[in-house]
Each structure stands twice: as structure tokens, then as C-alpha cells.
């Protein structure tokens, strides 16, 4: 087998390991799935009535693409927590002493996230439909939206991989993630129209990738004008992967268990 073939098989072996743990320690996935459901309920029934969303059938149609973007961005937490734990337990030492691909521990993690993200994406779509979300899209557009979300989640998994292999503990990795992602999602078009924000925040929200991602999803799923958002969204994802995948692997090569 060639180096690439080994890298792929090592990645699959480790992705399988990461997926096996999910039903065995389900608390992690449950909390990551329950939290966005709670957000949906909160925003649709509590804040929704007070938020004007001109051009949309109702607030639910406005909200679901945004909240799904937020949910996908958090999916990589499983990677950050898992890596931090592997470091603590000495497993990273074991992996680094094995003749396996240097990228496999990280790509096994991020690949497993794609599977868990598919599950939470499915749950979010079902919850959305239950609270009154309606697609205004062709089948191809729905599928493209799903693809874009999985790509976006994958890109964020690499950011979390970097955080997990760098942070001093699982708690620190978690804190860094929340501090960075929550403000970004709220200062975007995900939950409220950007027009309703003060000028200085609007300027930030316009260039925020969460705005680009949410607007791309609205173009695909509820027939909003697309502009360049879809292409820009893909470029953002590819760019994040291109930066954070090599950075994380470089970190991994020097990582020592604590």
C-alpha cells in the first residue's frame, strides 16, 4: 500500500473508534443536540414575535438556516474535547509512537464529526419542519444546502482540532470555542436582520463568515437572492480547511501528553 492509502485506512480506523464511543458515552452528543433544539424553541416562540424579518414568510423561515449554521459550527466540539482527552490520557503518545500517518488522528476526528453532524443536521431539519419551517427550494437546492452545511461543519472541525491539540485542557478548549463562536453567530445575520443593528456592528456583520454562510443557506432553502454568497461560502470553508488542517497537523507532530 502507498502512503496515501495508509493515511486513508488509518483515518478510517480512527474515525470508527471515535464513532464507537458516541453511543457508549452519549451524554456529549445529547447535550450538543438538545441545546440547538432549545434555541429553536426559544427564538421561535419567545423572541420571534418581536423580530421583524421583511421578505420572509415568517420568522421560522428566517431562523432555521441561521440556527443550523450555528449548530454545524459547534459540531467540531466533539473533536476538541476528544483530542484534549486523548492528550490527557496519554493516547496521543501511543498514537505518535505508532507507524501511522501523522494526519490520521486529526482527520479521523474530523471525519467522525461529519457523521455526527449529519445526525444533528437531520434532527434540526425535522425540528424545523415541526415548528413550521417550509422549504422554498428544488430537491437539488435542498441537497446542495445539506452539502454546504456538512462542508462548513467540517471546516470548523479543523478549527476545533487546532484548539483541542493546543489548549491545556478539555475545559480550556471548550471555553475558547464558546467565547469565539457565540459572539460571531450573534453578530451575524443568523438570528436577526443585519439592517436592525447599529452601523458599526453592521459593518462587522457584513464581513462575518456566519452572515455569508447563513445568507447562502437562505438562498438555497428559502429562495432569497443569492448574490455571491454561495460561492463565497464555499471559498470560506475551503480557506479555513487549508489554513487549519496543516496548522493542526504541525501541532500534533509536537504534541506531548500531559
Amino acid at each position, binding site marked *: *500500500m502507498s502512503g496515501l492509502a495508509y493515511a486513508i485506512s488509518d483515518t478510517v480506523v480512527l474515525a470508527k473508534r471515535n464513532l464507537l464511543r458516541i453511543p457508549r458515552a452519549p451524554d456529549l452528543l445529547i447535550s450538543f443536540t438538545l441545546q440547538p433544539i432549545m434555541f429553536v424553541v426559544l427564538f421561535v416562540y419567545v423572541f420571534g414575535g418581536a423580530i421583524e424579518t421583511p421578505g420572509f414568510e415568517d420568522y421560522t423561515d428566517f431562523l432555521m438556516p441561521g440556527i443550523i449554521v450555528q449548530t454545524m459550527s459547534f459540531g467540531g466540539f466533539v473533536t476538541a474535547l476528544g483530542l484534549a482527552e486523548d492528550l490527557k490520557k496519554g493516547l496521543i503518545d501511543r498514537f505518535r509512537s505508532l*507507524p*501511522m500517518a501523522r494526519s490520521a488522528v486529526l482527520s479521523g476526528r474530523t471525519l467522525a464529526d461529519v457523521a455526527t453532524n449529519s445526525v444533528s443536521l437531520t434532527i434540526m431539519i425535522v425540528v424545523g419542519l415541526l415548528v413550521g419551517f417550509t422549504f422554498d427550494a428544488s430537491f437539488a437546492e435542498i441537497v446542495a444546502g445539506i452539502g454546504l452545511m456538512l462542508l462548513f461543519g467540517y471546516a470548523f472541525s479543523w478549527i476545533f482540532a487546532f484548539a483541542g491539540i493546543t489548549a491545556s485542557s478539555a475545559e480550556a478548549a471548550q471555553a475558547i470555542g464558546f467565547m469565539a463562536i457565540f459572539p460571531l453567530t450573534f453578530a451575524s445575520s443568523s438570528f436577526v436582520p443585519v439592517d436592525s443593528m447599529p452601523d458599526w456592528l453592521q459593518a462587522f456583520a457584513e464581513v462575518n463568515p456566519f452572515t455569508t454562510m447563513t445568507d447562502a443557506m437562505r438562498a438555497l432553502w428559502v429562495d432569497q437572492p443569492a448574490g455571491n454568497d454561495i460561492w463565497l461560502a464555499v471559498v470560506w470553508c475551503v480557506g479555513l480547511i487549508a489554513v487549519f488542517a496543516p496548522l493542526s497537523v504541525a501541532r500534533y507532530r509536537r504534541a506531548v501528553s500531559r
Partner: protein
Amino acid sequence: MSEPAIEVRDLRKSYGDVEALRGIDLEAPAGTVLGLLGPNGAGKTTAVRILTTLLPPDAGSARVAGFDVVRDASELRAHVGLAGQYAAVDENLTGRENLEMVGRLYHLGRKRSLGRADELLETFGLTDAASRLVRTYSGGMRRRLDLAAALVARPPVIFLDEPTTGLDPRSRLALWQTIAVRVAAGTTVLLTTQYLDEADRLADAIAVIDHGQVIAEGTSDELKDRVGGERLEVTLEDPSQAEVAIAALAPISEDDRPSCAGELLSMPMRRDRGGIAEAVRRLDSAGVGIADIAVRRPTLDDVFIALTGHAAEHEGAEDEDEDEEEQGEEREERAA
């Protein structure tokens, strides 16, 4: 002579301004056990990490199984097994899944990995627990699984970092036996330990390391000779029999004249002279009544006192605590 399985020259490593290794030299011929003996903080784990390519050295060179730890790092990994200081096993996998995963990552293929996993589970007495999640395992079981993981690919060289620390005596013995079997089959082992008796039992050669330097090396017997070897301590029933006892024991003593203070007679024993059994026979036929008789083996602390003139400083312990630390005497082979 073929190349040694482990060859270390002037190896140095610092963490910031902590000099963990200040230039150590080590050598282990193929098929032997090299014991790295030293207290906490001596630099043992750092050495193991460099030799298994987890850490780059600052200076010096090291070859393992013919591969340079820096230049040939990736080939080297295919030829070594590591059981680190803390059991590195996945809690949320079963014992079998853990070993199968390691086999796959050594690129043994699925079938061979599974076969090897079952073989090793059997060897380490884990067959009954094979399908249980590791988080239900005891400390000893985890350790055994960790050691099994190091052996999955039958590597010619294995590194065991304090393999029995924290184990109960029975698990410890079982682990020693397994290691001995691997060595008999030709594996080279580098083993770190804080216990002289462990090095004694397993190692063909011992390097004593302290503050990042090798302060003594040799076989277990050679080291013990430097600290005075085994001492025989006899408590006499009747102190007035001291002279008779001294005469009876002189032939098996390293000293010309064993010393006796009150009823306690203490002397360094000559090796290969029948040990404690011979001492009892001699005292018996001389008609000396024995209240108590024991062999006191040198402990790591004795080695340190003999080699450095001070007790081993355990990391974190303040200097002034040293006096309070119990100089635990290991009394073994106590005769009835």
C-alpha cells in the same frame, strides 16, 4: 558483533531551563533488558520519549533497532512498542477493540489484527474481559492491556516506562513473567523503574540515573557490590554468645570479622555461599540460639546513598523532609 538494539550517545534535552538529560550514554545488545533506574524526575520518561521519537533531542544521537531517532523516525516506529508511564488505552473501547485498533495502525490488516488481539488477550489473562469496555477495568487490567498493545506488532525493541508502578504485588509478578517470556523470545527491552528489586529481577544491565545523568551502570550484582551487597542481620537469643556466632559466620561474611552490637549481629554476606540457609545451619551447629534472622537487601535509597552520598531526593519533597522519610528497610526471606 551485530549492532546494539539501543545505542545512545551524549543525549541531551532541556525543557526551558530544566535540564532533563545532561548527556547520557546507554547501550543494550539485542535480546537483553536494560533497566533505567532512578527516582522521580531523574529523566527516565524524557529518555523513553526521545527513544520512541515522541520528543526530539537537543543534542547527541540515539539509534534503536538500527534506526536513528531523528533521521529515520518513521521507520523506527514500525520496530518499537511503547507502554508509557500511564496506561494509554481507550476507555470507551473494549479490550479487544483497543488491541485491534493498534494492530490496524501498525498496518497488520484486519484479520491479523484481530487474531493478534485474541492471542494477546489470552496471554495477559484478559480473555474473559475482552468484550468489556475498558472503563470497567481495574488499574492492573489496564496496565496489562497497555503492555499488550506495546507487543501487538511483535516489535524487536520495547520500551516500558515504570510498567509496574501502582500495581499490586500479584499483578506485578505476572507482568514480570510476561516480560521475561518476551525477552527469552529475543525481544530487547528498555525498562524504567524506581525499584531496585524490579531492575534486579528483570534487567541484564542497569543504568542508575539521577538529575539527567548516568551515575552508575553495571549488572545488578555489580551495583549491589558497590552498596555492600546483601546484609545478614541476626538477633541473638543470648548476647553472651556473640563471639561464638561471629566465629561461626566469619567464613560466609565479606568482612573478616562480623560486628556485633548487643544482641544484633550484622554483616555483609558473601555471594554464592548458601545464603541465609547456610547461616542458620552454621549457627545451629555452633549451638547459637537465634531470636530472629533476616537478609536485608539494598534498596534504591541504599544505592543512592552509596553512589551520591545523599538520599534520593524525590521530586516535590523538601530537603528538610528527608530525615522524616522512613528509610524503609526491606526485610525479606525472614526465617521462621
